[in-house]
């Protein structure tokens, strides 16, 4: 059985691509066969975050249009044996993705024995975002502790419940988990930022992970290595915990408390 997981949010720049890359890598590290697909047609980025940008020959749209086979377009990851990337096309044609085309690719991935397909959604609620979530079995809703991100996420939760294959079949929509990213414990403690509890309460769905704001993410994107592979970074460790929870095992949430300031820092400031 192939499980299709969409990583979505409504708002742009909240960490969908960062999360898709790390979650796909982490699940594959557990021995599962994983394909991660960039649905952001016209704004390809997942290839850069995965560090395979120079190996893109064919893309998702080429496969949909029959210009390449799926096998030709899937880029095999160099670090994790069972991980494959399908890049977005750089075409400006908004209708390049079709529902039938996406369905055909997903069916073929299932036939090829993939355990998981991770769909990295574009921002917005237009066609690309719609198709990324339409066939999903589960959703990871990426949200930042910030008003516009929370509101947009609620909008996305509404679409997952009503505009997906599961909802049209009467299966009750696509179940979602929250992934809270760019979390800043010190600012939460100072009352400047919404807390995990606030966001969970407002959106009313379970949290699958909290990823702290971390310099490691920038380093990771600079070098083209998903941050989950950086075991020294908080964000990397938080993504590793999230993978374990996504695969069904409970694990306590870490990095919720601000590092305690030492005496000198308290007296003389940071």
């Amino acid at each position, binding site marked *: 059985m192939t499980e299709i997981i969409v990583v979505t949010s409504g708002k742009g720049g909240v960490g969908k691509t960062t999360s898709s890359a790390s979650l796909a890598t982490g699940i594959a590290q557990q021995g599962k066969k994983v394909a991660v697909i960039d649905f952001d047609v016209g704004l390809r980025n997942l290839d850069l975050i995965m560090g395979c940008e120079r190996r893109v020959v064919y893309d998702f749209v080429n496969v949909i249009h029959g210009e390449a086979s799926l096998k030709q377009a899937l880029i095999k990851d160099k670090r994790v044996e069972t991980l494959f990337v399908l890049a977005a096309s750089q075409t400006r044609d908004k209708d390049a993705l079709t529902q039938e085309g996406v369905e055909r690719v997903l069916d073929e991935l299932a036939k090829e024995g993939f355990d998981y397909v991770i769909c990295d959604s574009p921002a917005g609620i237009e066609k690309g975002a719609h198709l990324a979530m339409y066939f999903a079995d589960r959703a990871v809703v990426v949200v930042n502790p*910030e*008003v516009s991100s*929370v*509101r947009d996420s*609620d*909008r996305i939760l*509404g679409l997952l419940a*009503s505009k997906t294959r599961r909802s049209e079949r009467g299966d009750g929509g696509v179940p979602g988990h929250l992934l809270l990213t760019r979390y800043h414990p010190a600012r*939460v403690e*100072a*009352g*400047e*930022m*919404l*807390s995990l509890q*606030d966001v969970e309460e*407002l*959106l009313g769905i379970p949290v699958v992970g909290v990823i702290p704001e971390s310099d490691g993410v920038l380093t990771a994107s600079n070098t083209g290595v998903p941050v989950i592979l950086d075991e020294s970074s908080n964000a990397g460790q938080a993504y590793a915990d999230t993978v374990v929870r996504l695969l069904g095992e409970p694990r306590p949430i870490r990095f919720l408390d601000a590092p305690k300031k030492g005496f000198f820092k308290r007296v003389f400031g940071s």
Partner: protein
Amino acid sequence: MGILDFLRSRREPPAAKAKERLRIIVAQERANRGGPDYLPLMRNELLAVIRKYVHVDLDAIDIHLERNGEHDVLELSVALPDGKGGG
């Protein structure tokens, strides 16, 4: 807004204010979800009519569509300000 309210609102942590605003807007958008697109516009026009008679806030009016089997029921409720409900 009185001076006390002003001082109080200045002391309220920004995150608490964000949460309160989100609580209201999310509830409102959920209530309208799945309803026809004209609902928000109709809500504003109804509000304009109501305001000719009583002064109420935009968030004192709650309008949503209830699905009851075959029938759709449009529910409208207005929280009237104290002492002005008698008409």
